[in-house]
């Protein structure tokens, strides 16, 4: 397999000897020619394959290296003495020239990578703002009766996020209510104030945890589903089909989903609050020996309607956020199956992050406004 090089006038002859198989080490082409220091300099490289045995891709790889080397060193590459099959395969390999692509090279500098990242972030921001603009435009047209929304899709979303989400919302809310109550029992009992656990459960569930936990559940359940559904539709060109018919996919696909969630989230928040309080009451009765009357009495004394309404308001905002995040990521899905998974994941991450951020902002405003 080790090739030999001899010289005939201005031509270097590479002798291909024995079997060339991938199971053996592959010789490098360039170093073979480096020892040639005779004058005049060689002008061509030719091959002697008279003693060539079996061969596979290792020979072709070696010859491909040779072609590249010859191009780089201004040498003529002669394949005339190679077996016909080898020459034709080489010709096939060179038939389509190397394509210039925009793929980032491995050796890209750090500033260039930073710049590309910045541009990508800017593009993402522009896409998000454009999407929000399209949704706002659709919503305004709906309000002005200039849009025919498919209400069936709206009701499908309402149905799947009401009865469909009830079991998981029930379980999580009940457990969260119990956890808050346990926390209260441990801390408040030290000060002889175990009775006030109902305050903690009531405030905690109605103002914060009911909407937050429901939002997180729906971000994982519904936000991801929206992204996956729309992402699949993008890949199968269903969204393009809307656009080329001059029909806005936002009107038909995004608006029913977002509005559906904005309607169901507050309802689920009220339900989650009620179930959470129930869970807290069970712990209060079992651990603190409170009666139902004592617990509800404390609850009603502490919690006002504005607390419940604040939770409902948060639920509505969270529904909007989850719907928009899920639909936006779905509409921005790339072109392959793995992109659908990525879109679903990023919809959940974005949804939860925005929910928690929005919760903090609303709480801050509520404190400022004395709500």
């Amino acid at each position: 397999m080790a090739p030999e090089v001899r010289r005939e006038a201005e031509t270097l002859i590479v002798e291909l000897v024995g079997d060339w198989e991938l199971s053996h080490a592959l010789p490098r082409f360039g170093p073979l020619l480096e020892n040639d220091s005779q004058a005049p300099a060689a002008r061509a490289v030719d091959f002697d394959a008279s003693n060539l045995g079996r061969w596979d891709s290792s020979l072709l790889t070696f010859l491909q290296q040779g072609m590249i080397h010859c191009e780089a060193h201004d040498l003529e590459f002669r394949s005339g003495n190679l077996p016909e099959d080898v020459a034709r395969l080489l010709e096939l390999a060179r038939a389509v020239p190397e394509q210039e692509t925009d793929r980032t090279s491995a050796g890209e500098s750090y500033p260039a990578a930073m710049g590309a990242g910045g541009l990508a972030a800017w593009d993402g921001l522009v896409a998000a703002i454009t999407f929000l603009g399209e949704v706002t435009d659709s919503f305004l047209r709906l309000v002005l009766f200039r849009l025919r929304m498919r209400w069936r899709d709206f009701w499908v979303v309402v149905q799947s996020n009401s009865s469909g989400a009830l079991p998981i919302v029930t379980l999580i809310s009940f457990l969260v209510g119990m956890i808050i109550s346990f926390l209260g029992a441990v801390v408040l009992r030290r000060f002889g104030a175990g009775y006030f656990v109902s305050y903690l459960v009531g405030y905690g569930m109605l103002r914060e945890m009911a909407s937050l936990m429901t939002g997180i559940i729906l971000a994982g359940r519904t936000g991801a589903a929206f992204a996956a559904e729309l992402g699949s539709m993008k890949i199968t060109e269903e969204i393009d089909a809307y656009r080329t018919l001059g029909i806005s996919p936002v009107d038909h696909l995004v608006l029913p989903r977002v509005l559906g969630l904005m309607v169901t989230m507050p309802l689920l928040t009220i339900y989650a609050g009620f179930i959470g309080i129930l869970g807290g009451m069970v712990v209060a009765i079992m651990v603190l020996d409170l009666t139902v009357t004592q617990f509800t009495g404390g609850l009603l004394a502490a919690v006002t309607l504005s607390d419940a309404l604040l939770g409902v308001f948060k639920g509505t905002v969270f529904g909007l956020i989850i719907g928009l995040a899920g639909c936006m990521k779905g509409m921005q899905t790339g072109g392959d199956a793995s992109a659908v998974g990525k879109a679903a994941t990023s919809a959940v991450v974005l949804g939860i992050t925005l929910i928690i951020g929005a919760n903090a902002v609303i709480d801050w405003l509520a404190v400022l406004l004395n709500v």
Partner: protein
Amino acid sequence: MGALDVEQRGTDGRAPEETGTSPIEVRGLAMKYGPLVVMEDLNFQVRRGEIFVIMGGSGSGKSTLLKHLIGLKAPAEGSILFEGEDFFEADEEARKGILRRMGVLYQNGALWSGLTLAENVALPLEEYTDLDTRSIGEVVSLKLSLVGLRGFESFYPTEISGGMRKRAALARATALDPEVLFFDEPSSGLDPITASRLDDLILQLRDSFGTTIVIVSHDLASIFKIADRAIFLDIKEKTMTAMGSPVSLRDSPPSDEVRRFMTRSSVLGPSEDSDASRDPKAQDRRDDP
């Protein structure tokens, strides 16, 4: 390669349109993905009522060109005129008007999966016409009958075969009787008999309604059967290197690449079934306008 004089390259012998505007005119179009040039310097006109095929090897930019033609992707350079109007320069109302006059059949049908076949065909009618529900139902029934899918109105796209999906998509694409129909690889994934039926349907549409049809395809059998004219996108030259009738491109190819494409031969030599493109019936049909 410099600007291509397409009519000079065309060997079909037809005179260019002299009256009225072309349904589609492409002027100096360059298509890019970021800095990557896919194709450039594309110039051609599609004549009214013809079946115009965009040919080229895999990855040559055929589908990208189609996306430009149907308004999904803006040109990097140049312009695309639809009935003399630049889609990307037009305002929203004008764009909607242009889209209203075209129909697209996507490679996999792209039927809306959440809707039945009847609802798929009905949606464009609901959007663009003031027809009542009953009338829409009747039009839907007619359109599905024309593609041989009467009785499948209540089926969802996942419940029917690939060939039926394409026919249903054709019914949707023709719901508004478009002036121009675009097809992306209509015969891909279909068996030869189903593909041939679809070809017949395309010919029937053109002959009966005078619809201008633009097809992206590399299916030679289909191209020889239905195309009036074709252009060839050359991946090496990054531009179109030929335009004319399929028979003329096969018999007098302007480049090796076109010759290899039209005769199904690779750099290793012609394949054994390359004679399939020399169907004498198809040749007769093309030679006889």
